[in-house]
């Protein structure tokens, strides 16, 4: 009898929530908690260009054999919900370049990023007739964006206000609209807090989720130290903080060596990267060793004849002619090629400070 009443109640007033799905465990659990309460849930996933999901598997040969699954898609499939993936590459530039709340340990503007994404989700919810927004946030889980003080900041600055519900820590937060209106039952939400992962793991087990993704650094490359150093170097050398999608991609590929402030070399480390860099031949000066086998190299920036000679010596160092007296290097710019015969640099002639 009680069951029938519940079904009728649900049928009469089924509310709709849009869930931010990152591909990690927390957003998976938050969405599941809502589904358990009879809410209609659809997922939304934002692609900033820096997401760990996707593209690197297309570059490196060793990763090609076992293509990485897209964890946001995997989560949605586990949940049995629709997933809407939104390209925010252009709009995200302003978030990354001018974050009001600053950066985390690396170039990750997590708080501004969350505010932006929740704000986008709110717009989407309004356009598509959804009642509220949920995230997998947990108080104290992440040092920058998921603290007690940041929770209201995200709600307010995104404009979502009390239509933003965090099912995993709602009991530690003021009541939101969905709870007040009885669209969801606050007693069946959670009170997780702190950096521990144990409650999430227990809940995952309860729901029968195994094989979920546990990325170490978070959702994107901006939390990665090496990547952040490359991005900062790119901005410093160009004298302005800006980027295109190709820049973002190229920061993930190859060895980056900057022998002079005004140019940098991107040297393929293996066949997959070699093939990937081929696609950029028209946009960049390229170097390739002719007398010996060697990697394809792109030159980003401006280079004089002197610079090209130095670049050739570096490229020769990474070719099979590294110990030879002379190596022929072909330099091509806009379809026009010229040849340099150079002595490869010795290992100790490549300054450690050149490596980005």
């Amino acid at each position, binding site marked *: 009898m009680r069951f029938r009443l519940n079904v009728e109640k649900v049928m009469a007033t089924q509310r709709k929530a849009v869930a931010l799905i990152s591909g990690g465990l927390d957003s998976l659990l938050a969405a599941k908690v809502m589904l358990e309460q009879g809410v209609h849930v659809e997922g939304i996933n934002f692609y900033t260009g820096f997401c760990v999901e996707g593209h690197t598997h297309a570059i490196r040969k060793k990763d090609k054999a076992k*293509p990485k699954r897209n964890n946001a*898609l995997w989560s949605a*499939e586990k949940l049995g919900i629709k997933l809407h993936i939104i390209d925010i590459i252009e709009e995200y530039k302003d978030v990354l370049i001018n974050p009001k709340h600053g950066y985390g340990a690396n170039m990750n503007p997590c708080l501004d990023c969350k505010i932006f994404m929740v704000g986008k989700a709110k717009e989407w919810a309004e356009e598509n007739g959804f009642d509220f927004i949920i995230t997998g946030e947990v108080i104290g889980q992440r040092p920058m964006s998921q603290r007690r003080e940041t929770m209201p900041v995200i709600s307010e600055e995104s404009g979502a206000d009390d239509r933003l519900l965090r099912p995993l820590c709602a009991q530690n937060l003021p009541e939101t609209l969905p709870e007040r209106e009885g669209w969801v039952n606050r007693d069946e939400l959670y009170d997780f807090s702190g950096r521990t992962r144990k409650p999430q793991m227990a809940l995952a087990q309860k729901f029968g989720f195994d094989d979920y993704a546990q990325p170490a650094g978070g959702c994107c490359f901006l939390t990665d130290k090496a990547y952040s150093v490359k991005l900062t170097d790119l901005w410093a050398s160009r004298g302005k903080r800006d980027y295109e999608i190709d820049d973002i991609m190229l920061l993930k590929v190859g060895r980056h060596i900057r022998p002079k402030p005004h140019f940098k070399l991107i040297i393929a480390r293996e066949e997959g990267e070699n093939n990937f860099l081929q696609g950029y031949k028209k946009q960049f000066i390229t170097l390739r060793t002719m007398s010996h086998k060697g990697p394809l190299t792109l030159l980003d920036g401006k280079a004089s004849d002197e610079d090209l000679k130095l670049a050739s010596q570096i490229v020769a160092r990474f070719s099979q002619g590294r110990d030879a007296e002379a190596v022929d290097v072909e330099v091509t710019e806009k379809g026009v090629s010229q040849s340099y015969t150079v002595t490869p640099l010795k290992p100790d002639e490549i300054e450690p400070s050149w490596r980005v």
Partner: protein
Amino acid sequence: MIELDVRRLMCPMPVIKTQDRIKTMAPGEHLRVTCTDPGVMQDIPAWCRINGHTVLTAEEIDHEYSLIIEVGG
């Protein structure tokens, strides 16, 4: 058959482009997506399963991947 050329784009861009194209199509229509990122062979079928579309064929020819999708209702 509607054609979508997303060669050189990396996942998840081919999925996003497929999604946006399918939004403008009617149930029963067919879309052929041509890509170069091998990740699409996993991601596009997963996206289709979730959103109620059917992958009719998926094949690799010369490092290019081609999928034919029937739009669901």
